[in-house]
């Protein structure tokens, strides 16, 4: 009796140990691709890494942060990079995310490409300055009933160099069974304040990260973010500017306006701020004061669904209608848009109708 119990327990343990040993051995021997070289931007940087894991995680280990919201599971498709050589065949997870154009130019999801041999890749320059930061939530200031301004003190590294219009990815930790995610928020503060950044976060019903910011994040609490990302910034021309944004889409515009004032850039600029009713408006006093102070700046808030007779004396109607009324001829302007895809598509249609070439329309869509 005892002997048979001992025999079966002993046999099963031995079986487990032998098989586990075999798997570990196989992992060492079979999946060992040896050191591989990653050549970035034609020799600009060379990394030597141990092959076998994904390109995205290899780059992150070397402190190069590629935007990624899904954590390497191949569902967000933010981590696309051009891989010129050594990427291998396109995997089934990548298939649905790659457009014919991507395929032609060799763009791949870096989270799905394993480093198996020497690679030649291209990384946009601005991603080199991306770092992961430890920060502290210094202040949560409600701007409207569903938008807060989140002020973050940077702790480690202490300073972030960015251009007005860029965004950061805020990491929400796991809470109440919701997974940890990263979400992009434009920086609304000025680039000259390097140690303290501000974001405008709008509460998305059931949104994982926004709910965390609204309900769980306390002032003084530590958090992680990475950045700066994005190529949404002012161009170098003198063309008069049309800013069009609604809700939390104001963030990059507010940063650009403050930056222009600080740097003494005197380009003509008009900001069309679209909102539904008066309770959706915010920072109006600051923007009106800015309009008084600066002769080059005009501020046009417009409400699309304000009840008649509410005492609102400003513009009424959809922001695109107001835009068409104010600037019928847009051919000499440059436009910067930030907001929901629907709003941006509608605004682009109006701008093009007014004569603006598509090359002078810059936008930051948030999905």
């Amino acid at each position: 009796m005892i002997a048979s119990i001992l025999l079966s327990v002993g046999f099963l343990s031995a079986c487990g140990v032998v098989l586990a040993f075999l798997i570990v051995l196989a992992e060492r021997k079979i999946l060992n691709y040896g050191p591989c070289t990653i050549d970035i931007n034609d020799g600009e940087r060379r990394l030597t890494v141990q092959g076998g894991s994904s390109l995205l995680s290899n780059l992150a280990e070397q402190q190069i942060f590629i935007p990624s919201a899904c954590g390497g599971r191949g569902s967000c498709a933010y981590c696309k990079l051009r891989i010129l050589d050594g990427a291998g065949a396109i995997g089934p997870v990548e298939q649905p995310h790659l457009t014919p154009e991507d395929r032609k130019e060799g763009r791949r999801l870096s989270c799905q490409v394993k480093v198996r041999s020497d690679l030649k890749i291209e990384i946009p320059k601005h991603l080199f300055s991306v770092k992961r930061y430890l920060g502290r939530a210094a202040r949560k200031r409600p701007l409207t009933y569903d938008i807060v301004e989140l002020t973050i003190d940077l702790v480690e590294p202490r300073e972030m160099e960015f251009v007005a219009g860029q965004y950061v990815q805020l990491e929400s930790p796991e809470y109440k069974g919701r997974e940890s995610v990263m979400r992009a928020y434009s920086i609304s503060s000025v680039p000259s304040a390097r140690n303290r950044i501000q974001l405008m976060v709008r509460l998305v019903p059931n949104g994982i990260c926004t709910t965390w910011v609204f309900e769980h994040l306390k002032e003084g609490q530590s958090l992680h973010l990475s950045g700066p990302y994005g190529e949404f910034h002012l161009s170098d021309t003198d063309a008069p500017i049309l800013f069009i944004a609604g809700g939390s889409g104001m963030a990059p515009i507010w940063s650009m306006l403050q930056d222009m004032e600080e740097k003494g850039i005197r380009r003509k600029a008009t900001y069309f701020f679209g909102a539904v009713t008066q309770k959706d408006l915010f920072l109006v006093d600051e923007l009106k004061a800015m309009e008084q102070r600066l002769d080059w700046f005009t501020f046009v808030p417009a409400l699309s669904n304000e009840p008649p007779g509410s005492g609102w004396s400003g513009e009424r109607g959809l922001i695109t209608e107001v835009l068409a009324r104010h600037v019928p001829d847009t051919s000499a302007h440059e436009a910067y848009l930030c907001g929901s895809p629907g709003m941006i598509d509608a605004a682009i249609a109006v701008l093009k109708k007014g004569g603006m070439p598509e090359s002078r329309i810059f936008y930051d869509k948030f999905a």
Partner: protein
Amino acid sequence: MTAPETGLFSSFLLIVISAAFTDNILLARFLGMCSCLGVSKKVDTSIGLGAAVTFVTASTAALNYLVYTYILRPLGIEYLKLIVFIVVIAAFTQIVEMLIERISEGLYNALGIFLPLITVNCAILGSSLFMLNKPYSFLQAFGFGLGCGFGWFLAISLIGGIREKINESVVPKGLEGPGITLIIIGIMALAFVGFSGMIKV
């Protein structure tokens, strides 16, 4: 002198065919249903998974036959076969996945990604257990595994093809997805029951 060899071959073939058709593991025994429902939306993924299952079923049937005959039976611990077979299958799929990944990326993309899915597929464990019911030789056990896997491959490819067609037609809301698939599998099972008893091995 060639007679015994053809005899061996024909018995092997007979076992393969009977395992694939008269005792179809998916349609007659309803094993391996979870991964079948999950992956049979398209023909090409069905074929990929089916091929992976065929390969793994055939190899693990042979492997488990050896483990059973030369380790479990001499030690008198046949009652441990269930748990031992599971770990052998799991370890085998893991190692094969690594091998395929290393050897051919194309093959890995076609087959390898399905391997983790079938580590715990009951059709594979089932065929390893069922083969012990008959006094098979090593080669016959391998044939039985091959036949089981091929039968599963055949069934899931057919289901995949039907589901692709069904996607283009209107299905009552409550029956969409797994519902209509199970009904289809039931009807196909009826058809396969028609084979039963045709071959006695």
